[in-house]
């Protein structure tokens, strides 16, 4: 197991920093160009949600390994207002991008594993993993 590297999200520019960090770690693990771009896009979506809806929070990356595979884990945590109806926001077409594939359902597609925990007024935690193929 690698160590966690985190980046705080407060300003819009921090989204760029998070992308860069995520991409660098993904590259080091051995992800190709296409997957690097997908991971960076997922980072953007999660970091942007923190910036837009929760004011501040952080995105953390970690290289992970099991007996037979390697991957990257990405966790986005904030202590913002939380998401009250998770099933609703996970529906295609709900995001403000209106049917353009982005938003949380997009993150789920870009990554291999996706988990979301959110409590009203307490915050949101999105945990995702992408495995190296």
């Amino acid at each position, binding site marked *: 197991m690698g160590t966690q590297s985190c980046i705080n999200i407060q300003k819009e520019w921090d989204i760029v920093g998070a992308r860069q960090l995520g991409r660098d770690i993904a590259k080091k693990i051995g992800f190709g*160009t296409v997957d690097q771009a*997908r991971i960076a896009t997922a980072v953007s979506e999660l970091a942007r949600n923190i910036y837009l809806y929760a004011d501040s929070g952080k995105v953390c990356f970690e290289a992970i390994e099991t007996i037979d595979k390697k991957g990257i884990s990405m966790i986005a945590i904030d202590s913002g207002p939380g998401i009250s109806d998770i099933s609703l926001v996970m529906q295609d077409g709900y995001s403000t991008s209106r*049917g*353009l594939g982005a938003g949380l359902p*997009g993150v789920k597609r*870009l990554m291999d594993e996706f988990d979301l925990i959110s409590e009203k007024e307490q915050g949101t935690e999105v945990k995702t993993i992408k495995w190296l193929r």
Partner: protein
Amino acid sequence: MGNVIDLDAKNYKSLLKNYIETQDEKFLYRAEQISKSFLKNNILPEEIVNLHMQALDELYPSLSGEFQRSMNFLLETMISYGLAHQEFQTLREEQLALKSQIAVAASMQDTLLATSKPNIEGLDIGVISVPANQMNGDYHHFIESNDGSIGIALADVIGKGVPAALCMSMIKYSMDSFPENAMQPKSILENLNRVVERNVDPSMFITMFYAQYQPKDNKLHYASAGHEPGFYYNAKRDKFEEIEAKGLVLGVSLDAKYHQYNLHINKDDMIILLTDGVTECRQGERFIEREEVLNVIRDHAHLSAQEMVDRVYKYFQRLQNFQLRDDFTLIILRKDV
């Protein structure tokens, strides 16, 4: 998926090389086929850009770094297209599932609302009812009574699709529950008006025409709840007249009263009942005139009532480029003897 892209990768590279060297159209044709195979196998645009980058790199290793970085840039801009493509795919599957559910509902509706044309000596009846979408918001029903009379109900829910269709089932089942002695046009509308007022959302309106034909004395008794006026064809004068009948749309006011009218029918006279899907046919921006319906009927007056309604439908279907904008129901009764 991995296999397809590996296989196509080899193909892609050699096609690309051939094309760059010869600029022969046939390689572009093959490229078109590869692109279809990508689509079929859900290969996303960013993967294709990547494939292109790799092929170029292998074919022309000396291409400039600037160029390769520009391809990276292009790849990045494709990610959102890839996501949108996947979302459309999911939505398409969901839409197919919905469509087949509605198809089941529509066939249930057909069974629930089934009615058959009565066989009455001397009365030729033609009916056609076609929904604009899968489910019909028009409703017609024939009722044969013990005294030899027939009742003809024709209703139109303002609105289309599933909600309209659900509403129609309610109308039908309420009518079934009315006692035989309440089968006068006026009392039917008054009873239904109460059912609709109590049970249907106020934003939903139902218009209805109810007629009762008594062959014994050749009289048509009828009442209307705001329904599109039908026509009476007077054979002796060879003239169409509008069947005037006043009455409130169903469900607006709990104690609406309906006036009952009657009409004496002679040999070769016709009664034409319709919904606004017939008269509000549109050709481009132009609404057809109600007269046009009559002209088409007149053109086919030598045919049987059923052939007449079929022809009128075909005529307007074609006029509207085969896409009905509203549910279309047309009933023609003609006294033969």
